[in-house]
């Protein structure tokens, strides 16, 4: 058994529903949670649209997978980053995004919202720090 914990980053750059990338990424994140790695999600470019709250797909006959993002804290995802420039370019603010809570099962430490808006320099830093980056 390997005890090496790697930093996994899931990089999301596509809007939901128009293509399958957003959903596929989410599926891989949920499956990957079984491997006990240090997982973070990064949303840049059109990927920031994935976290927009209030999605209602009843009119287009597709599965609304956006509620699943709010459960990510239960899958050991402790950090979710959103690029500030990408939000601004789309006329969005953090108020437009879902809040995702995290509770540490061991320490019972609770974080109300692990969604963090970061600047481009921080995005660069976080990508450099990651051992593996999965692109969607």
């Amino acid at each position: 058994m390997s005890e090496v914990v790697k930093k996994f980053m899931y990089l999301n750059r596509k809007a939901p529903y128009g293509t399958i990338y957003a959903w596929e990424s989410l599926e891989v994140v949920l499956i990957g949670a079984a491997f006990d790695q240090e997982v973070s999600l990064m949303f840049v470019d059109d990927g920031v649209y994935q976290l927009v709250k209030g999605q209602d797909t009843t009119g287009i006959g597709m599965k609304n997978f956006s509620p699943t993002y709010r459960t990510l804290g239960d899958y050991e995802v402790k950090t979710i980053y959103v690029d500030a420039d990408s939000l601004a370019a789309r006329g969005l603010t953090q108020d437009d995004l879902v809040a995702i809570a995290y509770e540490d099962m061991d320490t019972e430490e609770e974080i109300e919202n692990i969604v963090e808006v970061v600047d481009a320099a921080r995005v660069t830093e976080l990508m450099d720090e990651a051992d593996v980056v999965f692109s969607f």
Partner: protein
Amino acid sequence: MSILHTVNKTPFERNSLESCLKYASPGAAVLLIEDGVYAALVGSSAESLVKSGLGKVSVYVLGPDLKARGFREDRLIEGIQVVDYAGFVDLTTEHDKVQAWL
């Protein structure tokens, strides 16, 4: 000959909308569908592109696609009209042909 143009990509990912607006003739109709609906929102870097387009063509957005993506009509750029699927059908019948910008 009047054309209904459809755009289904975001203006940030592709230049479909930009090309569509460039080549569409005055009086044509442009319907934003699927990921194309993001172009209809206020405050984005594509707003000026869309606003200049509104001076030349009629711009419509497909309501169910907008709602699916979490946005209400109060976030739309003024002058853009919302249609439902029946409205989409009406637009296709009112125009001589449909041209898709993929």
